[in-house]
């Protein structure tokens, strides 16, 4: 019988040569007369082991990684197909790898396990049970379930998902929409991408449930153009879900309709802001809208619209399948459920870590991450994306939950954890925050559009030693103006990384920058 060997096909595995590994495995097996079937699964999210090759054995799946094409012959020599231990790349049973075994994978239970495009595989791993449950419920009951789970928006704003859905359900309209914000632009985040590339049906299912909950019949996934593979996989998955009756005019014979389409963004970070995203979906420049009216009342094309992040929608199938309590049992305080953390930047063992709220950064960066990739001491960490604070070591022992982080002016954001070693120049990072805002501002409000340009200039003057004290004061005032006067989080939060760098790493601002900054 042919042995099944899994070679991931997500962007990270491919970026490290997974296709060449798959080809080499097939070729080498043919040469040796071995019966082997290569399955292209998603990634388990253990990025540092990619390409992570797994083999199916009677005792479960066994992992090897990181594998290069040149490793293939020796792996086969040393018993890859029997899942034998001994090779330098052998990681043992996949599920027992401590990095994976210590996680609480609710949303990400299937990534890397299944063939992302196989509907049968998805169903065999508890897929579509949430949707089947939702089809038997009244809209209000679905909304109640999501409310009871305590799920809050995973895009960064942490607004209770059930309350948002209730608002849309209660708004009378001839047409309502579900919009998935898949414009995952924060550096250090890739959890949305992993959902879309490795388990696309969980997002499709979550959106269909949202549609049933608020009586919306049309959904859009607004996907960033930087994710070409996710586009291809989602398009394919949507077509297959339609063919299997999980999307379309008649969901599984219920008479209820839900249609879904992927729309591509075009390289504008600001379109991750929900009102800018809606403008973009309508075919306009991505200018931020004034709120109110809330998108839940007047959203896409002026109709009531649920706008949720990929991770919020992908959490919903579990909640409907297992019950709100099973989700709410995880977490701490008002932060219920699990958080998808993404270890990135200068990290030895980077990847996806899904944990209940309440863990600390230190546990995450040291126990999971294993410290820096460079081996140098860790100096700063930016949690939550380019609009969130840089945290020094004194803040690495706080529990990760929305409220605790907010108290110290930090954010959990979308769960990105970007680590920097002691070679980082924090004044340069602060300057980059302003430069990024200048580059990506939609231009509608002055504090963001002009403030960011002035911010770069002021930081340059400080570093050049020109009227340092006066310019430091000016930078403080500028940050306040941006924070208080900007229309959205782009201008309003850009000061956070700047102020945190100033506060915790002031010495870096006292010296001139090194090297090229072009």
């Amino acid at each position, binding site marked *: 019988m042919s042995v099944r060997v899994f070679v991931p096909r997500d962007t990270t595995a491919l970026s490290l040569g997974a296709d060449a590994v798959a080809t080499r495995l097939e070729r080498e097996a043919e040469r040796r007369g071995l019966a082997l079937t290569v399955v292209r699964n998603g990634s388990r999210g253990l990025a540092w082991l990619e390409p992570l090759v797994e083999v199916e054995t009677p005792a479960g799946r066994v992992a090897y990684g990181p594998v290069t094409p040149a490793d293939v012959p020796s792996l086969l020599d040393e018993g890859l197909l029997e899942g034998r231990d001994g090779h330098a790349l052998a990681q043992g049973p996949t599920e027992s790898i401590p990095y994976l075994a210590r996680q609480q994978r609710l949303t990400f239970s299937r990534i890397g396990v299944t063939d992302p495009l196989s509907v049968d595989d998805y169903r065999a791993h508890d897929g579509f049970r949430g949707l089947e449950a939702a089809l038997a419920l009244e809209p209000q009951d679905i909304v109640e379930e999501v409310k009871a789970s305590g799920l809050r928006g995973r895009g960064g704003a942490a607004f209770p998902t059930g309350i948002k859905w209730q608002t849309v359900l209660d708004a009378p309209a001839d047409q309502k929409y579900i919009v998935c914000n898949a414009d995952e632009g924060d550096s250090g985040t890739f959890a949305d991408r992993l959902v879309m590339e490795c388990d696309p049906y969980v997002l499709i299912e979550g959106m269909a449930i949202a549609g049933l909950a608020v009586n919306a019949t049309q959904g859009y996934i607004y996907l960033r153009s930087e994710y070409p593979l996710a586009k291809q996989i989602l398009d394919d998955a949507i077509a297959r879900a339609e063919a299997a009756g999980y999307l379309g005019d008649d969901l599984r014979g219920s008479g209820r309709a839900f249609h879904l389409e992927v729309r591509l963004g075009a390289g504008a970070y600001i379109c991750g802001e929900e009102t800018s995203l809606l403008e973009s979906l309508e075919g306009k420049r991505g200018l931020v809208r004034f709120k109110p009216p809330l998108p839940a009342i007047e959203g896409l094309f002026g109709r009531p619209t649920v706008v949720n992040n990929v991770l919020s929608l992908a959490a919903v199938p579990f909640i409907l399948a297992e019950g709100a309590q099973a989700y709410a049992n995880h977490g701490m305080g008002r932060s219920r459920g699990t958080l998808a953390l993404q270890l*990135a930047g200068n990290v030895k063992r980077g990847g996806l870590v899904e944990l209940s709220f309440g863990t600390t950064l230190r546990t995450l960066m040291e126990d999971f991450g294993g410290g820096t990739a460079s081996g140098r001491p860790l100096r700063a960490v930016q949690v939550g994306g380019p609009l969130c604070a840089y945290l020094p070591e004194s803040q690495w022992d706080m529990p990760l939950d929305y409220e605790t982080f907010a108290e110290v002016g930090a954010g959990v954001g979308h769960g990105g954890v970007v680590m920097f070693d002691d070679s980082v120049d924090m004044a340069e990072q602060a300057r980059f925050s302003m430069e990024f805002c200048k580059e990506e501002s939609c231009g509608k409000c002055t504090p963001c559009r002009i403030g960011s340009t002035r911010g770069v200039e002021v930081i340059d003057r400080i570093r050049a030693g020109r009227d340092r004290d006066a310019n430091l004061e000016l930078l403080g005032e500028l940050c306040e103006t941006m924070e208080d006067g900007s229309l959205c989080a782009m201008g309003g939060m850009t000061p956070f990384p700047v102020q945190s760098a100033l506060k915790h790493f002031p010495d870096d601002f006292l010296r001139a920058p090194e090297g090229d900054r072009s």
Partner: protein
Amino acid sequence: MNDSREWTPQAVQAEVDALKHKPGALLPILHALQDRFDHVPEGAVPIIAESLGLTRAEVHGVISFYHHFRTSPPGRHVVQVCRAEACQARGARPLEAHAKATLGVGYHQTTADREITLEAVYCLGNCACGPSVRVDDQILGRVTPERFDALVDELRTQPLEVLG
């Protein structure tokens, strides 16, 4: 040479007509044009405006708002270097300086041999394995200056093939 990437008003009109019924059709149309012609030709603006009932200024405004859309043809390959924080933590700054020096161009410029257009990008979602670079639709991780040079050599020595 019959190059289907050369645009004509008829070809633009066909792309527009295939999509104009969609709600919010402008971005899908611009993507379709750029996918087909590698850029959005200036000459397409009045055709799109006419078909969607917009002004030329509105169409131009949308094209110029988004980094992704370009109004002149790029080189044979587009190379994007990630400039965002996670890649910075792994050496993106020296890498971008190296890329510019090696290719002899800045961002949004094309090498003299028309082989490579260099662009900046803010995050490719490969943040645990930076620095990352995108070449056309392929994303590469852990790109050192040496790997970058090897990549450029490979792109330049590939036999000319008819694309699409």
